[in-house]
C-alpha cells in the first residue's frame, strides 16, 4: 500500500521511537522480574509524549484521530520489537470501545486520559480457553442507579496494570460493554504468567459495581474488528523481524565450507516465506484501510488479514527456529521469543481456524 504523507510520517516516528526504546533486553528483564506482569514504562512514556497513545482518540478529546491504518503502523513496530506495552488494550481497544460505545460524558471522562497516558484500560471478553466472544455467561444486574456484574473472564491482557476494566456482560439477553474500576471490591484479578511475558490475567467479578457504556450498542463489533486488525499488523511486523534475523543468519552461518544461505533447500523456503509475508502485509494494510473507510466488507477483510497473518507468523517463526538450528532452540538467542509471541498474538481474538471459519460463514457457505 502507498502511505499518505501523514501515515508515512507516523511510520517513521513509530520506527524511531521503537528502535530507540524497545528491545528484547527489556522483555528479558521483565520476564526475570518479580511478578512477570509489567510493561515497558520507558517506551510507554515515549509513546505518550509523541501522542501515540491518542492515535485513535478524537482531536477534541486531546488525541490525533489518525485511524486504524496509522495505529497499525505502530502495531507493526510492536510486533517487530516484541514490545511489552498496553498499546493494544488501552490505545486501541479501550479507545474504540469508549469512543464508539460510550456516551458523551463517558468519552469526555476517559478518552482524554487515554491520550494523555494517565489511564490504562483492559478489555475482558473471553470466558473460555478459545475465543468465542458471543458466549458470555457474565451477567449484569440493574441496581436502579447503575449496574453490578458477576462472572469470570480469562485471557485479559494488561488486567494487572489496568485502572479500568471494560467487560462484556449480558444485559436483557444481549452482550453489552461495561466499565468497572479495577480496584472495586467485587473484582478479583489473578495474574497468569504467560508464554510470551505479556501481562495476562483471569478476572472474577462478584457483584462488582459497573457502568454501562450506553452509546452505540454495537460497539463490540467494532472492538473485535479493530483487535483482530491490529493483531494482524503486529503479526506481520513480527514475521518480518524474525525473517530479517533468519536471513542474516543464512548469510553468515557456515557449514560444509559455505554459507548455508547458498543451499537451495533453504533458499526456496526463504523465498516462499518472503512471498507469504508480502501478501499478508498487503492484506493487513488493505483490511485496516477498509475499516477506516467504513467499507461494507471490512470485517470480512479483517478476518482474512488475521487468518493470513497468523499463518505467516507461525511459518516465519517456525522457519526461524529451524534455520537457526540448535541455536534457535536456546533461550540465549532471541528467535524463540518470536515464536512465543506469534502463538499468543495468533490465539488472541480468534486464531486462523476461527477467522477462516467466520470468513466462510460471512461469505454464505
Amino acid at each position, binding site marked *: 500500500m502507498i502511505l499518505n504523507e501523514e501515515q508515512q510520517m507516523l511510520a517513521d516516528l513509530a520506527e524511531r521511537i521503537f528502535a530507540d526504546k524497545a528491545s528484547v533486553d527489556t522483555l528479558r528483564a521483565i520476564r526475570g522480574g518479580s511478578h512477570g506482569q509489567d510493561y515497558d514504562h520507558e517506551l510507554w512514556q515515549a509513546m505518550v509524549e509523541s501522542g501515540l497513545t491518542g492515535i485513535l482518540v478524537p482531536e477534541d478529546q486531546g488525541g490525533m484521530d489518525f485511524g486504524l491504518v496509522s495505529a497499525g503502523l505502530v502495531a507493526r513496530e510492536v510486533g517487530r520489537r516484541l514490545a511489552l506495552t498496553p498499546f493494544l488494550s488501552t490505545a486501541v481497544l479501550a479507545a474504540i470501545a469508549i469512543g464508539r460505545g460510550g456516551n458523551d460524558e463517558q468519552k469526555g471522562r476517559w478518552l482524554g486520559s487515554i491520550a494523555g497516558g494517565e489511564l490504562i484500560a483492559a478489555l475482558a471478553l473471553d470466558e473460555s480457553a478459545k475465543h468465542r466472544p458471543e458466549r458470555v455467561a457474565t451477567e449484569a444486574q440493574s441496581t436502579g442507579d447503575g449496574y453490578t456484574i458477576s462472572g469470570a473472564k480469562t485471557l485479559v491482557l494488561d488486567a494487572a496494570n489496568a485502572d479500568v476494566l471494560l467487560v462484556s456482560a449480558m444485559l436483557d439477553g444481549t452482550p453489552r460493554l461495561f466499565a468497572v474500576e479495577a480496584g472495586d471490591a467485587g473484582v478479583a484479578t489473578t495474574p497468569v504468567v504467560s508464554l510470551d511475558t505479556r501481562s495476562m490475567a483471569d478476572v472474577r467479578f462478584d457483584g462488582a459495581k459497573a457502568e454501562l457504556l450506553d452509546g452505540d450498542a454495537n460497539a463490540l463489533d467494532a472492538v473485535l474488528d479493530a483487535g483482530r486488525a491490529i493483531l494482524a499488523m503486529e503479526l506481520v511486523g513480527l514475521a518480518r523481524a524474525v525473517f530479517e534475523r533468519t536471513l542474516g543468519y543464512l548469510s553468515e552461518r557456515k557449514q560444509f565450507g559455505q554459507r548455508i544461505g547458498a543451499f537451495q533447500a533453504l*533458499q526456496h523456503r526463504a523465498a516462499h516465506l518472503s512471498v507469504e509475508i508480502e501478501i499478508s502485509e498487503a492484506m493487513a494494510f488493505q483490511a485496516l484501510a477498509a475499516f477506516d473507510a467504513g467499507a461494507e466488507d471490512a470485517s470480512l477483510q479483517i478476518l482474512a488479514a488475521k487468518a493470513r497473518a497468523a499463518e505467516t507468523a507461525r511459518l516465519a517463526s517456525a522457519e526461524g527456529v529451524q534455520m537457526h538450528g540448535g541455536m534457535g532452540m536456546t533461550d540465549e538467542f532471541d528467535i524463540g521469543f518470536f515464536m512465543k509471541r506469534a502463538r499468543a498474538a495468533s490465539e488472541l481474538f480468534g486464531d486462523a481456524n476461527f477467522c477462516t471459519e467466520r*470468513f466462510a460463514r460471512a461469505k454464505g457457505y
Partner: protein
Amino acid sequence: MGDMEAFRAEVRSWLEENCPPEMRQPLASDKEHVWGGRQWEFSSEAQRVWFERMVEKGWTAPAWPVEYGGGGMTPAEHDVFKSEMKRINARSPVSNFGFWMLGPALLKFGSEEQKREHLPAIARGEIRWCQGYSEPNAGSDLASLKTSAEIDGDHFVVNGRKIWTSYADRADKMFCLVRTDPDAKKQAGISFILLDMESPGVSTRPIQLISGESPFCETFFDDVRVPRDNLVGELNQGWTIAKYLLTHERDNIGGEPPGLLKGRDLAKMALEAVGADENGRLDDPMLRADVARLEIDAMAFRTLVEHTRAKAEAGEGVGARSAMLKYYGTELNKRRYNLMMDAMGGQGLEWESERTHGGRYAREWLRSKGNSIEGGTSEIMLGIISSAVLELPKG
C-alpha cells in the same frame, strides 16, 4: 468534465454502439479465441464485425503509437479503455503472441523499418506470431539453447529444434532465439530473429498434452534461410530482449489465467455441486475449510497485485516482484482447480460428455498444472527471489 472523463464517455459510447452482444459473453472455450493470421476463419459474423471495427479504430493494440497501427493511448487512457472493455465484458477482438510479446519487444528494440513492417500487420490481425524459445535441452536453463544461425552472405542459415512453441502449426511467423556465436559465454552468443513459418526447411509437429489438447508444438529447422535484416537489436545481444520479454510474460501470468474458473465463484460452484447442511453450510466441512483458506489467500494475493500495480504506476520499480506474483499466482490457480475437482466429484471424471462441455473440468484442471512450469517454473521463480530480492549467497 476532466479530459479523462470525456475520454471515458467517448470510449463507452463507441463500445456500446459497436460491440455486438455476442462479443460480450465470456468465451465458452479456448476455441472461440480470435488469433488472426493468414489462414484465419471467423466462426461467426459477430466475431468478424467486432474484429473489423476494432482494427479500423486501432484499438486492437490500444497503447501502440498510431503510426504503427495502434490506438495511441496514454497509459491513463489505456486504463480507462481496459476498464470500459471489462465493464461490458467485451471479448478481445484478436490477440496472439505478436500483441503480447513481439510488439513490446519491437517497440523497445526494433529498427524503424521493422516497426513499420511488422507492428501494423500485427495490429490488423494479418499475421499470427509464435514464440521460439525453449528447446528439448534448454527449458529452465534457456540460455543453453543450441539452435544455430550461421551467417551466409545476406542470410542466416538456421538449424535446430524448438519445443513448446504455442500453436506453431497455425502461426505465420516466429520470433526466435538462436545461437549466433557458439564460442561465447552462453548468454552472450544469442540473437533474436524473425522468421517466416512458410520458409523451406521449417516443419512442425503438435504435442498432445495430458489434457488431450495440443496447444504446443515442436518446430524443426533444416537449413532455413532467414534474411539478415530480420535480426532484432544487435547481433549476439538477443538475451537482453529475451529477458525483457520473460519479465513481461510473467507480469501477464501473474494475473488470473483465462479458463473455466476465471471470475467464477468457487464456493458457489461447490455449494451447487455438494449441497448445504441444515445451517446452510457447505456439506463437506473439510472442503469448506479448504475453500475458505483458498479464498482468503486469493483475496490477499489480489491485494498484493493491486499494490504492486499502484507502485509501478507511481514510478517505483517492480523488478523481481513479478517473480513473486508469477510464483504465487500460478500455485494459487492450481489449488483452485484441485478444489474445483474435489467439488465437482463424478463430473470431474467425465472426459467427453455434453453436460461438461467435453470434459472441461478434467481438461482445464490438467492444463492448470502447466501454469507453474511455463514462463519459468516455480522453482526458477524461487531462485530469482532468493538472489534478486533476498540477496542470499550464491551456491
